[in-house]
Structures are given as structure tokens and as C-alpha cells.
């Protein structure tokens, strides 16, 4: 995927996790199962529709001010639900790099008044106010959507999520999705223990690229092979209980309440107003 230019110092190297910058599914599920605040009781459908609204808003909006406001609101929502803020900022790492990897290149040479200029032979780079604005706007939009997305995941119980997947996706995507969601936890544990075993015998430290690559390839190959075998066994276990093609998620998802309809309508109206009828300085 993407190169993550992380500092190589062991100080950052948290051994207990696969990577501290990737949201930990166990932790996410822990919050979604244990939470009790208001946002846990709102209908999951409401939260899903709000997600769509936010994505639309972020795609339509051109103003930095609006992006910052949206981000602030979402962050407050996240904080009010008692979700871990410190973790959230760790998890911003990858979205941040995603924005940077593209915009770091694109923000130069934007038309506008120059702030800073760098010139080397055959090459000149100028950072303009518009370039900077571009980067900041994208960054805040990105953080708003990431934060809401995690908020949604961390305030919605696993059985509701699975029932929603079952409703939304057509066969067989729903079946594959539902099963894979359960398998991910098992597979992650398996990969984690393999990596642990590697480290306990001195693997995982920077050695020759060739050895390192080979070692991880072996781990990945084993992950695939084990997943295959496990699929076989899980399938057997399901057939032993009469599985004949379709798995049904039985949970009833709470309906959208009248208040929730009203709030969504209000939010949508507000968004339309802000985007099309108000002009912001930037």
C-alpha cells in the first residue's frame, strides 16, 4: 500500500499491537458493546443516514470554515459519547498521511499570492495561500468523515451492524460480509500470535530486506493457508447444524424515532442553506 514513514526508533515500536495507528477492532467493539450514552440508543439507521449526509456535505462544501465547523461538531459528538480521544488522534495518522501523500505535491504552484518559495536549478516551488488552504480544507474534511465514521462504529452494537449488513447488501455479498466480519477477529489474533512468535525469536528487527521480505511472505502465506483450513472447518460446523445456504441475522434494529426524523431534516436543511446560500471568506 502506502509507505508509512514512521520513525524507526524502538520507542515508537509498540510491541503489543500490530500497529498503534490502525484502529483496533477489539477496542472499537469493546466501546460499541459497553457504551450507554444517548448516542448508543439512537437508531443505527439514523446514524447511517447521517453518515451519508456528512459525506455529501464534505463533497459539496468548498469552504475551510465550514469544514472546520463540521469537524468540531463531530469531534464534540465523539467526545460526548465517552470515546477515547487520545486514541483517535493516534488513528488520524494514516488518514493524515493519505491527505499528505497527494496534497503535499499538489499544494505547490497553486495560483494565488505566494507565502513561501523554494527554488533549485530547473525547478521552483511556490506555496501560495490557496495551496495552503487546499491542504487544510482537505485535512479537516477528511478528519470530519473519519471521526464520524469511527463514532458510528463505536456507538453501534455489533449485532445491529450485522443486521444492517444483512438488510443492505444483496446475496451473496451479505453472507460473505457477515462471515468475514466475524473471521477478522480470529484471523487478527492468529496473525498477531504469529508475529509475536517471530519477535520472540529475534525476527521483526531490521535486517536485510531480503530476509525480512521472505519472513513476512511466509507469515502471509501461512495466514492464507490457515484461513483456508479454518474456512473448511467453520463450514463443516455450520453444515453440522443444518446450514443450507443462508445465514439469517435475527436481531431487530431499533426504528428511527419521530424526533430523529425531525433532526435529520433539520440537519439536511441547514446543510443546504450553508452550502448554497451563505458565502464564506474562505
Amino acid at each position, binding site marked *: 500500500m502506502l509507505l508509512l514513514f514512521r520513525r524507526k526508533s524502538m520507542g515508537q515500536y509498540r510491541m503489543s499491537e500490530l500497529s498503534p495507528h490502525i484502529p483496533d477492532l477489539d477496542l472499537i*467493539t469493546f466501546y460499541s*458493546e459497553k457504551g450507554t450514552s444517548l448516542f448508543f440508543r439512537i437508531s443505527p439507521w439514523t446514524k447511517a443516514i447521517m453518515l451519508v449526509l456528512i459525506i455529501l456535505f464534505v463533497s459539496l462544501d468548498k469552504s475551510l470554515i465550514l469544514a472546520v465547523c463540521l469537524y468540531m461538531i463531530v469531534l464534540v459528538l465523539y467526545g460526548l459519547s465517552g470515546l477515547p480521544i487520545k486514541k483517535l488522534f493516534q488513528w488520524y495518522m494514516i488518514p493524515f498521511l493519505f491527505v499528505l501523500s497527494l496534497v503535499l505535491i499538489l499544494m505547490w504552484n497553486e495560483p494565488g499570492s505566494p507565502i513561501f518559495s523554494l527554488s533549485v536549478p530547473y525547478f521552483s516551488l511556490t506555496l501560495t495561500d490557496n495551496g495552503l488552504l487546499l491542504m487544510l480544507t482537505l485535512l479537516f474534511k477528511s478528519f470530519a468523515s473519519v471521526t464520524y465514521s469511527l463514532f458510528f462504529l463505536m456507538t453501534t452494537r455489533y*449485532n445491529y451492524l450485522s443486521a444492517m449488513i444483512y438488510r443492505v447488501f444483496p446475496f451473496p455479498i451479505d453472507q460473505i460480509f457477515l462471515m468475514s466480519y466475524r473471521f477478522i477477529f480470529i484471523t487478527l489474533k492468529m496473525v498477531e500470535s504469529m508475529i509475536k512468535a517471530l519477535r520472540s525469536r529475534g525476527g521483526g528487527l531490521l535486517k536485510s530486506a531480503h530476509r525480512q521480505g521472505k519472513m513476512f511472505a511466509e507469515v502471509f502465506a501461512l495466514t492464507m493457508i490457515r484461513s483456508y483450513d479454518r474456512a473448511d472447518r467453520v463450514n463443516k*460446523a*455450520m453444515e*453440522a447444524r443444518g446450514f443450507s445456504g443462508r445465514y*439469517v441475522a*435475527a436481531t431487530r434494529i431499533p426504528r428511527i424515532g419521530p424526533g430523529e426524523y425531525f433532526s435529520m431534516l433539520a440537519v439536511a436543511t441547514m446543510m443546504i442553506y450553508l452550502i448554497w446560500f451563505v458565502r464564506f471568506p474562505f
Partner: protein
Amino acid sequence: MMILTNSQQIHIKHAWHASTADTKELIHVDCASHIYPDGSQGIHDMCFRVFEKEIVALCGPNGSGKSTLIEHLNGLLRPSSGNVTVMGNKLDLSRVDIWKDVGVVFQRSDDQLFAPTVLDDVMFGPINMGVSMEQAKSEALGALKAVGAENLSDKMPGYLSGGQKRLVCIAGVLAMKPRVIAMDEPTSDLDPLHAEMVENIILNLKNNHGISIVIATHDLDLAARISDRVCIVKDGSIITEGRPSSIFYDKNLIEMSGLRQPKVVQIYEGITKNLGIVMENYPITADELVKTIAPMIRQH
């Protein structure tokens, strides 16, 4: 008599068979062999029967074919040669609903729990049997209650402890009200307390629900405590079977099969050997041993 000779062993086995001839036969595996796709042999000329209301223990070393046999009992695997008859019906490709009669609890609980919540998982079997949602739910709750896990129903299976996972697996099978339940290594990985819980559930299933249980295990102490009949599995076939008290005192047989006698038997044999006296009783549980030894000390 220190050790039963082989011919005596066979004698006992036959005697035992005769005595159960009148009880109803639920499963009959008749000279079945199974070759895995990669050519390795799972079972070979395996003959095995399960009768009504009994606990049978399959004991054998790693790789002897216990799990392979168990997967034949409800049609997950089909024999390469030989026959399997369940509830009097020969198991062939047209017959696909044996899973209603024979439930299997697998060796690894993780392989068996796939639904998002415990309740969903336990309901999975009843729903497949075609009952309504409400009834499936009430059956699932009943099953969870029977294993003492009703308070887990909303939990995510991934977050349960090893012992709790095992209980939920058993509930999942129980909810389908099978006639026979086969359990593969039901207590490995469990701490003594959880193991005891599972042991009590097994006994309860037999005594109060009239379900026959097949357990595969290499814990001979467990087999000695709870089973009515022990089958020693080696290299894919059952080399001998009989009451625990007769099988487990045949030291040659047990060691030849790559096993070790249960602790209780080892101790009792050790004591009688040390004293040079003749065994009269054949205790196989700790209680029985105490009841055998204590009078000996008092008597003298």
C-alpha cells in the same frame, strides 16, 4: 490377577456386547474406512456402535482417527468404503438431515461460533430446522439455560472465555434436540473448574434428557469417571472396547495403544504391586479408590 491377558480382554468385550443387545442401537458404523484427499488414512475398517442412553468414550493417541470417526457420525464425512447407519437409516448421499439426530461439538470452539451474538449462534440450528423465529429464540434460551449460560446471550462469542465458549457450543447443539451428541475433546484447554462443569453437563444430558453422548478424548481419567463404555482407537480402528474398569486395568493394551493408564489405576496397581497382593476390586475413580483402599488399611 495383575493384568488381564488379551484373550480375557476379548472375552469381556463379547460379554459386554451381549448384555447390551437388547438396548436400541442408534448409530452403527460398519467397517468404514476413510481416506483423505491427500492420501492419509483417517479411519480404517472402523466398526463402532452407539446405543440408547449411554456415554461412550473414544480414547486414543494423537492422530488415531477419533475426530475423523466423529465427523462420520453425522455425515460430515462419508466413508470411502463401508457403511454408516443412523437411526436405522443407511446414510447415503440422498439423506442429508442426519444433523437433526446427531449433533457435533467440535474440538475448537472458535470454529463453531460464527454468529455476531451468542443468541444468534444458538438460534442458528433451530432456524435451519424450519421453526419460527420466536420458537427458535425460546429453544435457544432453553438450551443456554440448560448449560447455565443464559446470562451470556447478548455477548459476542469472540469475547468469551475458553470455558464459556465451550458451553455456548454445547448449547448450540442442544437447541436442536438431537438424540446423540458427539463431543471432540470437550475438556482440553479448560481449567479444572470449567472441565468439571462440562463433565456435569454431559452426565446431566444422559441422565435427565436421555441423550447418548460420544466423547473423543485422550484424558483417560475423564473417560474413567463418566463413560459407560470405552473404545480404544488406534491407527484408525477400534482395537478393543468394554467397561472402563476392565479396559483400563489392561496395562499392556493401554500402553501398546500409546496411552497411559488413568492416575487412579496407576496408583492402585502401584500399591498392590508394592504389597504383592492380588487385586480384588477395580476402582477407576478417585472415590472408588478411596473406598477400596481405606478398608484395606483398617482391616489389617
